[in-house]
């Protein structure tokens, strides 16, 4: 018999707050995290807005308690993972089978960019300390070592759905009774590599993004990290704290349409949402809030909207894209938005979709515009879609 999986702790660091409480405060004030580029050295400064975490590497390193020479991706991840673990407050963790499943998209790329600057002109140049931790797995390993987790760790990288996949992979490890506790989510720092990558695709909005708006112009890049601590039913019974909720459904399906573009009929997102619902045993009408992938690109919002229509029409639950606050944090977005989804259940929150003005003409629904709390939120769906047609939906449910 498979165990249920409970959420015992959450941690996040994003452009709208260095911890969960600060993020919630920004949501309530409807304050977005986008601004001029402040921390990365790029020709796009003053030209493209981004949602950076408002701390330098030195400041992050102080909070994280490790060297500032570490990749920013590791620094962000360690801060959020530590928060989540502290929040979960699990007694005698070392006696339990504990795993760390983390996602990211470009590993220590922020450091590799420094290395390559010298390496490109002369292959004997470039400081090796800036490149030897390039692999995605190095980020996970460095965080796990700091957390003292040895029993099980791995890294998932499926572009922008990475950390949603990490979360449900972690949940499966608990369901299969392989682990008692899993910290899962993801981290990604803003890098020149990804900023320029998305810029070449011409999907960056020069202003603050407007997800699901008829006149949307693209996405804003963000950065951050988000982790949830999941525990088995057996451990949950022994814990002296109110657990947040359970992970009741999940699915990964592939759009199989194009490497970067998504299908016009929303096949991948539709299958992911539908199969996640089937897994949870819920009906579309049971969902009280959808945290949309909602990047703000013409393509994503069309595809996702079509999938939502196919599954929910005519009973649309409140929905919004919190990327209108945090920007698109790529491999961290699934983790960060899972944290927001969990908090939506705890506090009865509907997050507003900032800057939304005009309903998309294809659809008869519009995202939520106002911050609401103390609503009845029993089931939340969180969507994360990535390059390569990688579509994942998670469903969190009140206990």
């Amino acid at each position, binding site marked *: 018999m498979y165990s249920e999986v409970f959420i015992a702790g959450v941690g996040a660091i994003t452009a709208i707050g260095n911890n969960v409480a600060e993020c919630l405060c920004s949501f309530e004030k409807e304050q977005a995290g986008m601004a001029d580029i402040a921390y990365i050295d*790029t*020709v*796009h400064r003053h030209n493209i807005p981004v949602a950076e975490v408002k701390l330098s590497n030195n400041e992050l390193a102080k909070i994280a308690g490790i060297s500032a020479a570490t990749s920013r991706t590791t620094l962000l991840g360690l801060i959020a993972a530590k928060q989540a673990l502290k929040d979960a407050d699990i007694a005698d963790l070392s006696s339990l089978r504990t795993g760390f499943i983390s996602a990211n*998209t470009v590993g220590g790329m922020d450091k*590799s*960019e420094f290395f*390559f*600057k010298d*390496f*490109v002109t002369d*292959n*004997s140049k470039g400081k*090796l300390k800036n*490149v*030897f931790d390039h*692999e*995605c*797995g*190095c980020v*996970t*390993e460095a965080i796990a070592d700091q957390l003292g987790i*040895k029993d099980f*760790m*791995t*890294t*998932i*990288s*499926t*572009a922008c759905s990475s950390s949603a*996949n990490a979360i449900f*992979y972690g949940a*499966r*490890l608990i*369901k*299969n009774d392989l682990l008692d506790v899993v910290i899962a989510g993801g981290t990604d720092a803003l890098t*020149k*590599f990804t900023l*320029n*990558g998305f*810029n*070449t*695709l011409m999907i960056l909005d020069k202003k603050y993004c407007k997800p699901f708006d008829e006149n949307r112009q693209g996405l804003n890049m963000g950065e951050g990290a988000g982790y949830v601590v999941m525990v088995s039913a057996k451990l949950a019974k022994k814990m002296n704290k109110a657990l947040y909720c359970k992970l009741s459904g999940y699915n*990964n*399906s*592939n*759009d*199989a*349409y*194009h*490497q*970067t573009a998504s299908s016009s009929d929303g*096949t*991948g997102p539709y*299958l992911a949402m539908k199969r996640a619902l089937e897994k949870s045993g819920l009906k579309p009408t049971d969902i009280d809030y959808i945290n949309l992938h909602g990047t703000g690109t013409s393509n994503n919002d069309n595809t996702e909207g079509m999938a939502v229509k196919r599954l929910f029409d005519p009973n649309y639950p409140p929905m919004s894209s919190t990327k209108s606050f945090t920007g698109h944090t790529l491999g961290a977005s699934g983790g960060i938005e899972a944290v927001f989804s969990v908090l939506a259940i705890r506090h009865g929150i509907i997050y507003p979709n900032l800057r939304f003005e005009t309903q998309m003409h294809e659809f008869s629904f519009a995202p939520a515009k106002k911050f609401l709390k103390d609503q009845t939120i029993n089931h939340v769906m969180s969507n994360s879609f*990535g*390059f*390569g*047609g*990688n579509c994942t939906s998670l469903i969190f449910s009140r206990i």
Partner: protein
Amino acid sequence: MKQYIRSSACISPQKTFRQVNFLTDVMEYNGTRLRAIEPDYTEFIDPKLIRRMSHIIKMGLAASQECLNEGNTNMPGAIITGTAYGSLGDTVSFLTRLIELNEEMLPPTAFIHSTHNTVAAQIALMLKCHQYNNTFVHKGISFESALFDALMLLKEKEADNILVGGIDEMTDASFTILTRLGLYKRWPVSNLSLFKTSSNGTIGGEGSVFFLLTDRPSADNLAELIGMLTFYKPNDTAEIELKIITFLALYGLQIDDIDIVITGKNGDLRNDKVYNQLSHSIFRNSSLVNYKHLCGEYPTSSAFALWLAANMIKREEVPLVVKEISVKKINPNKVLIYNHYLNKYHSLMLVSAC
């Protein structure tokens, strides 16, 4: 419930792809870098697309397609890949352009193909496969992580005919950097005499190896995959010994029940210390087999070892070139693979005749 390797396909620096012969015509390389032998891709990929595809994507698509063909399967139930470095060629290409062109007027193609899940995604795209698709990128256990996921999916009855692959490419840049980091020998060496020299460093390699996993028994299956285990930073050799003994005991087996032990010896003194110690302790009576002189060292090379194990069992044959010492049993029934990567990540895979 039992899990089986239904079919496999291997692109490596040896003649392993679509070969009737089993490692008899061995490729010798002098140097410290082994390059995969590339098949004629036009059979597997639309020629119009080949030109724009990087080495790793082509290797991934060809090996996965051949694996499906061998397994008489059109549509896998899930696609899972393991790759430590991912699309290195495209990553380096975009990064280099970014620096050279100072972030202006960059072409997007390399970036589009740079994500780590590109191979798994391209397989899904080619097959129009809408099922579970995942990619693990955890250093020396990237492939093992993918395999572990596949076994879990089978157990959960979530999917059957799961396509699992271990893929990594070596590029000029990564070879230069890894050489500077001291991974490889400082002078050229023949891969066929890799274990005759005792010095620091190994030889680098690459490859693309895919497997089709199923829980349905069939006479056509290559082998049974009894189980696997990974562990991180063991305290000492005694702990490794205990892990191996405990792992086998889980399946009611002892070391003496294992006909062949494939180890990850790579010719580097520091790396091989553990294997040498074990060859005098728990493996002292075991028939030992090496493989890294054939495919080179790379983070997902254990996929090559699994291909080797499955083929030795199915073909009832142990190629001469892999034997460490005289191998007693010529038709192995049970094969244990023990590999470690930089002495941090250790993995065990246990394969048996069906």
